[in-house]
């Protein structure tokens, strides 16, 4: 009985890092698509927030924002001059921008200025 319990404990302990990595990997793959060298990463807009709020990507990656909220939102960079600025996105509308230069890009929704996000390009 004790031996069986120990076997299960050892097996669970040894498998947990692998399972964690697998889960993280599937999440990452779930939000990105790869076509040759180009990558696309999605940011979901829902319930008055950007998800993920902070995104770290490699230079050359295209970020696509999708509005899943039931109210219009925009995606506008805080920097001046503005690197990107979307029109008002209705439900299920998308906006994409390719980040070619390294740096940190803060952005917000111009309709709801307290909605903010950040893209870190490495």
């Amino acid at each position, binding site marked *: 009985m004790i031996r069986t319990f120990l076997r299960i404990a050892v097996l669970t302990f040894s498998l947990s890092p692998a399972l964690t990595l697998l889960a993280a990997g599937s999440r990452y793959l779930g939000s990105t698509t790869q076509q040759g060298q180009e990558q696309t990463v999605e940011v979901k807009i*829902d*319930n*008055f927030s950007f998800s993920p709020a902070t995104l770290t990507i490699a230079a050359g990656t295209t970020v696509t924002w999708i509005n899943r909220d*039931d*109210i*219009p939102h925009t995606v506008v960079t805080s920097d001046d001059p503005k690197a990107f600025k979307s029109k*008002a996105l*209705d439900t299920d509308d998308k906006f994409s921008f390719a980040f070619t230069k390294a740096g940190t890009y803060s952005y917000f929704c111009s*309709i*709801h*200025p*307290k*909605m903010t996000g950040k893209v870190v390009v490495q």
Partner: protein
Amino acid sequence: MQSPLYADLVLLLEIAIGLALLVGAWLARKRKFREHAWCQSVAVLLNLVIVAMVMVPTFREQVNPKIPAKLGRSYVGLPAAHGALGGIVELTALYILVAAGTKVLPEGLRIRRYKLWMRAVLVAWWLVLLLGAATYMRWYVPFPFRH
């Protein structure tokens, strides 16, 4: 709350204007007609400034492009109803101001039943104010039961 500062200020100002119109109506009942005229005139003209400087530009940018395609959605339908009814009420209120406070209108265009017109506009004004508050809630307040 996710509203920009200007939206908060406009909502507060509009509530204040709505209350000022009620005070103005009370002044008329107390037969203080000069004070009544000043109160209602300032309220209607201040509202006109807010409409022209804030509401019309915001409406043109955020709502107008979605009409008529998305008129069925509450975030378009509410501000559209607010704008349409609000425009009629503001113009009617301005007409009453000109008719009651000046003699520029020809005899045929002057108002005779002032009380009826003023009371109808006051009721409609508050209806427009409630539509405006509903528009604010729809655009800027996240409800936990929305999803």
